């Protein structure tokens, strides 16, 4: 389903953009406006992060957004409600992003059912390798939702293939070691890495971690199907407010 959407869109655009927000940061109202701006500015897919108190794979910016959202009362229920509203309002695929404890505490089957009911298209759970995710993967499959698996630069080719076996929709390729929000060196080595990813899967590739400028997006065009902008927009909102988002996104591509 999502794969089809991606390929379809790629007929009109050289590269798709996926953006990321932390639901409830800086507030749910603002979150809604950000989504609205992004969709209007032409974003193709979006990650909606359910904030978690221990976001182990996120850097300081997203980490701070998680905390702030929680302090402001971003419960899981409130996030689900927000997602419902967003999915109903905008016509692009939305994915959940969160750490495993959130669906785990909710109850995996119930969580996946809720996602399906709301109309989300998939989920990224960065601390859930397939070895630990049997139940989650089964439920996702049953509901025809895409579990987005993650490739990393130091994943062996055998393991890339192993992961690919569980992936649906697209694969999220982490550009480098480290957490979100640090600079990435867009260079020949990235080409080699993406080629390796490509050899392991026929799914579209999304590349994230450190993508933030039109130049970065240009570099990726023709190499990945999706450029993921995460930390950059949160930083933008912090520095220049929600109003700056639309212009920023439009200028990326």
């Amino acid at each position, binding site marked *: 389903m999502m794969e089809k959407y991606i390929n379809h869109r790629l007929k009109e655009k050289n590269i798709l953009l996926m953006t990321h927000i932390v639901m409830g940061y800086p507030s749910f109202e603002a979150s809604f406006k950000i989504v609205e701006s992004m969709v209007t500015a032409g974003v193709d897919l979006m990650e909606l992060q359910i904030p*978690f*108190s*221990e*976001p*182990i*794979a996120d*850097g*300081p910016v997203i*980490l*701070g957004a998680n*905390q702030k959202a*929680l302090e402001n009362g971003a*419960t*899981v229920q409130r996030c689900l409600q927000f997602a419902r509203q967003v999915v109903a309002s905008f016509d692009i695929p939305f994915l959940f992003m969160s*750490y*495993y*404890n*959130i669906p*785990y*505490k*909710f109850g995996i089957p119930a969580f996946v059912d809720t996602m399906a009911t709301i109309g989300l298209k998939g989920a990224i759970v*960065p*601390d*859930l*390798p397939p*070895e*630990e995710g049997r139940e989650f993967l089964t439920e996702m499959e049953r509901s025809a939702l895409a579990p987005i*698996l*993650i*490739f*990393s*630069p*130091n*994943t*062996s080719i055998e*393991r890339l293939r192993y*992961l690919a076996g569980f992936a649906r929709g697209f694969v999220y390729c*982490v550009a480098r*070691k*480290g*957490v979100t929000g*640090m600079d990435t060196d867009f260079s020949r080595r990235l080409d080699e890495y993406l080629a390796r990813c490509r050899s392991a899967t026929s799914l579209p590739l999304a590349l994230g971690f450190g993508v933030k400028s039109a130049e970065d997006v240009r570099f990726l065009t023709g190499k990945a199907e999706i450029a993921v902008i995460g930390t950059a927009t949160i930083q933008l909102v912090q520095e220049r407010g929600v109003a700056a988002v639309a212009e920023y996104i439009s200028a990326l591509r």
Partner: protein
Amino acid sequence: MDDRGYHNGFGGAFLPEILVATFDQLDAVFRQARNDPEFWQTYENIMASYSCRPTPLTFAENLTRHFGGARIYIKREDLNHTGAHKANNVMGQGLLVRRMGKTRVIAETGAGQHGVATATMAARFGFRCTIYMGEVDVHRQRPNVFWMQRLGADVVPVRDGTRILKDAINEAFRDWVSNMDTTHYVLGTACGPHPFPEMVTYFQSIIGKEARQQVMRAENRLPDRVYACVGGGSNAMGIFSGFADEATELVGVEAAGRGLDSGQHASRLCAADASVGVAQGYKTFFLQDQDGQMKETHSIAAGLDYVGVSPILAGFKETGKARFEAVTDDEVVEAASLTIRKEGLIPALESAHAFAQAFKEAPALSRDAIILINQSGRGDKDIFTIADAFDDPGWKEFIIEKAGQYGRERSPAS
């Protein structure tokens, strides 16, 4: 990594993909070492020549008489170099780091005890060293920060999250995912993703091995009960390892803080507000809310002030292989005070939890019963906390005077 370290459903390795290869390597090196009979010998030698293993077993004659019940023995991990059982774990991991050819270590620390131990190990092995410590703890545990710095470690105050131990762990993971090629993360307790719980237990099992032999030598039979405090669970797993027999009851003692109903405690195995979850890479009982967000914890003992607990102990809880109890801050201070006066031993406030529970039970046991308490560390490192717990006026005066002196140095004009 085939065996993912499950213990009755607890454990696992919930890792970001970027760390999977690093854990595969760690797991392999650990297995290799464990299967190499010379490795344990090397480990024992280094602990004998650098720390003072075997640590003694002390018969607490005065406490035994005082309670009039079971014969009380104390395993003296307080005598270790750097003052706690933490030394066992860090030196063991140091040997693995050397095997892996890495040159840098990082660690989280709450009380500062594990940070000092790791910085010490790094100095001795010649590794570079960074210690992550919640900003709140940096302020609370300044003496340990001072020592870590003297030992050459870079101490990074963690200003994110609740700025305590769990946040320091998250931050250490963030460093690790960037620097795993050169760097090993020396986790401080029997928690975290597999193989950490097993690996830390393996190194700490030296406590139980020795204690078993020592009790047998002294009494020619096994103890009836063994008490250990439970923070992450490493000292408990260490001493319990020696007494897997049915004959000995294992008692883990958690921090009930201001009471199990107060919302201010750190009990994950005895409290109603704990439940199973997955965080920091493993599945266990956490103190968390209904959404799965981690709660703030409280204990008078900084080293017990943690949201998770060893998955191996969580397994023991489920199977009944160990019994878990919790004692309050007040009970702990009283037990520490009594132990100091009666035996001249100064248990760390963490360890004093084990003493407090043992003291509750000892009087009701018969005079030929034998109980063993693990004194995981020494309390003189805790003077700021203990002096506060005793509300000592002389100490306060001293600090106020000292501050006055420093203040005058800063503003020589005034």
